[in-house]
């Protein structure tokens, strides 16, 4: 009889939720909800981390805000769902979040499992960090044979690590944890010699160690880690919005549109700037995307251009001081290349 009551209640509550969720597209859903539900990292300083007041900040977080600004014209209409590596894709799958912007590597298997990657907002690669004070004399990953390596489970990192040591015929002892905090704590306490994850992560976590200056990131990059936003497969319009939000940020940087001068720029005579900012007469670029025509203005007003987002969160304006490197604009020798907004 308990089964009956319980299962009945379960079915009823499920039905209630069903009624809420039955809607056509993600964009309509988001607009109806009145906010964007964005999946982010549980705590990767520089990319997504809450401060002690519970306010989120970081590179990925700014991307969430940019999407919110594009959809609502208001970057505050976004809620963050912190997700572990394990939870992130199921959460997107189940509709718990609308978009996943959580330094997720674009791989074929993930792309075919019912997800769509909309671009690469950060080109990363897996690296190694060691305690140079204790392990002086080691300056290459190829000297790491026999080391204990701290790594987070359920990531591409774990697989790359196994492949790298195997192909270089080196031995190692993996120390695997579920959560980033646990990996950090274990590495900091000296449980492992080596910490491996995406290089951006290494720079971020290094600052959270007891003695950051003792630790160095080794030069080798052992994998390609193109990190980007993910959406559910089958909603092309929503995927387009996320994709073009990224391109809008890049284009703004190319054209020199910044958070500070975007208002001014709307009055610019430059045809390209006018077009991008939706100032052309009878433009339909924004509305065709399902947004308003001043969507790029909203994005840049909210978070700045790609360069600003980068420098404020992880670059020179942050404690992490990560160089643009391959994330520079294509015109400056990097890989970031925006498709034309026209």
């Amino acid at each position, binding site marked *: *009889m308990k*089964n*009956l009551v319980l*299962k*009945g209640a379960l*079915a009823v509550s499920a039905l209630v939720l069903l009624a809420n969720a039955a809607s056509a597209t993600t964009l309509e859903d988001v607009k109806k909800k009145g906010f964007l539900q964005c999946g982010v990292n549980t705590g990767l300083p520089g990319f997504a981390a809450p401060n002690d007041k519970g306010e989120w900040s970081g590179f990925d977080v700014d991307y969430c805000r940019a999407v919110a600004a594009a959809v609502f014209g208001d970057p505050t209409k976004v809620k963050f769902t912190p997700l572990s*590596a*394990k939870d992130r*894709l*199921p959460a997107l*799958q189940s509709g718990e979040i609308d978009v996943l912007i959580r330094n997720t590597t674009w791989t074929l298997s993930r792309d*075919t*499992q*019912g997800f769509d990657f909309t671009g690469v907002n950060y080109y990363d690669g897996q690296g190694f960090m060691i305690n140079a004070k*204790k*392990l002086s004399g080691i300056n290459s990953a190829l*000297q*790491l*044979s*026999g*080391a*204990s390596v701290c790594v987070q*489970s*359920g990531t591409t990192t*774990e*697989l790359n*690590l*196994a*492949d790298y040591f*195997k192909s270089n015929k080196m031995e*190692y*002892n*993996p*120390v*695997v*944890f*579920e959560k980033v905090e*646990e990996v950090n*704590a*274990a590495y900091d*306490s*000296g*449980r492992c*010699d080596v910490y491996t994850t995406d290089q951006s992560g290494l720079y971020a976590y290094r600052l959270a160690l007891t003695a950051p200056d003792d630790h160095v990131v080794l030069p080798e990059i052992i994998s390609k880690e193109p990190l980007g936003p993910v959406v559910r497969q089958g909603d092309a319009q929503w995927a387009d919005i996320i994709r073009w939000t990224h391109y809008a940020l890049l284009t703004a940087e190319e054209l020199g549109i910044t958070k500070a001068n975007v208002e001014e720029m709307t009055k610019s005579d430059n045809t390209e700037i006018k077009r991008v900012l939706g100032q052309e007469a009878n433009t339909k670029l924004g509305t065709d995307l399902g947004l308003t025509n001043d969507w790029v203005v909203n994005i840049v007003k909210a978070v700045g251009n790609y360069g600003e987002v980068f420098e404020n969160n992880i670059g020179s304006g942050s404690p992490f001081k990560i160089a643009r490197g391959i994330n520079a604009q294509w015109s400056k020798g990097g890989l970031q290349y925006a498709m034309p907004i026209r």
Partner: protein
Amino acid sequence: MASQDITPVGRSSAKASLLYDPKFRGYIFQTITVLVLTGLIYWIVHNTVANLQRAHLASGFGFLDGRSGFDISSSPFLRYTSDSTYITALWVGILNTLTVAVAGIITATMIGFIIGIGRLSHNWLIRKICTVYVEVFRNIPPLLVIFFWYLGVLSVLPQARQSITLPFGTYLNNRGFFFPAPVFADGAWLAGVGLIAGIVGALLVRRWATKRQMATGQQFPVGITSLGLIIGLPLLALAIKGFPLSFDYPVLGSFNLKGGALIGPEFMSLFLALSFYTGSFIAEIVRAGIRGVGKGQTEAANALGLRAGPTTRLVVVPQAMRIIIPPLTSQYLNLTKNSSLAVAVGYPDLVAVGGTILNQTGRSIEVVAIWMVVYLSISVLTSIFMNWFNAKMALVER
């Protein structure tokens, strides 16, 4: 249901009876339950299939034969590399779960008995220390105890290069406890034979000694003889073969100690935490069990002239065991289930390995099913064994 129908059968049963007949109502109720349940299961299966199709996920256990691609830090019983299959990885996980559970059960029982008896001690200080121990460990979550041991052990132990050197070529540092691994050469099999012969011999001696004591009242030092047999015979066997046994000693390498065998801090902290945590519960069970043995039993034993030691060993404990065993069984099962907390410190037990596989393949249903089957089997097997043991210990009445 138990509601009793006292209406005489026949009179009112003509019209309204069927609805008021408890038996009939029972059938109706059960039919409804079955129907609802079937419907629900159908609904769930239907949804699951739809969801899996939508996500282009296959189902079935075929993926277990695939290459795992990840490494596991501790696999003492199986050869495992990143080229092994998922199923091998799962076996490593199961064996690791069993290892930590068995080791934990042994120490938890020892701790529990010592503390439980200590709580009944006449010695005030011992009693209080034991009480504090029990009250502290019983009332905090096991997960916290595990973290505490892990971070505590890690922060106290030195780095690999400043290892604490212990006797017999063993070392202790924050990478774990290193000890020489025995390497068996040809002819070592005889030692195994010796060990088995020793155990069999010890059992036979015990049987003979009991028989003799029954007949003549004379006692025989069974314990020491057995120990001699079990240790002596393998040694003798080795001596005959000229000691075909060498040890692989751990030596300091560039990062760490190389060679030898290793017990990692993950295992140690999990093992210690489970032992101490469960030990506090076992202590309470033991205390209750001993107090459950009537005072008259002790007094009668004293009156027979038994000293304190034999009284405890021969009179109190065997009777207390009857009270102790059933709750002890559930504590053993709890310990085994709590070993799944290994995931928090990165010890590769079944749940941790399964979690990694779940992550890499997305096969949540299959992995959860494997978890359930394995844990349920362990539970059932433990219950069967403990029931057998309980039956053996039970009061034999005519």
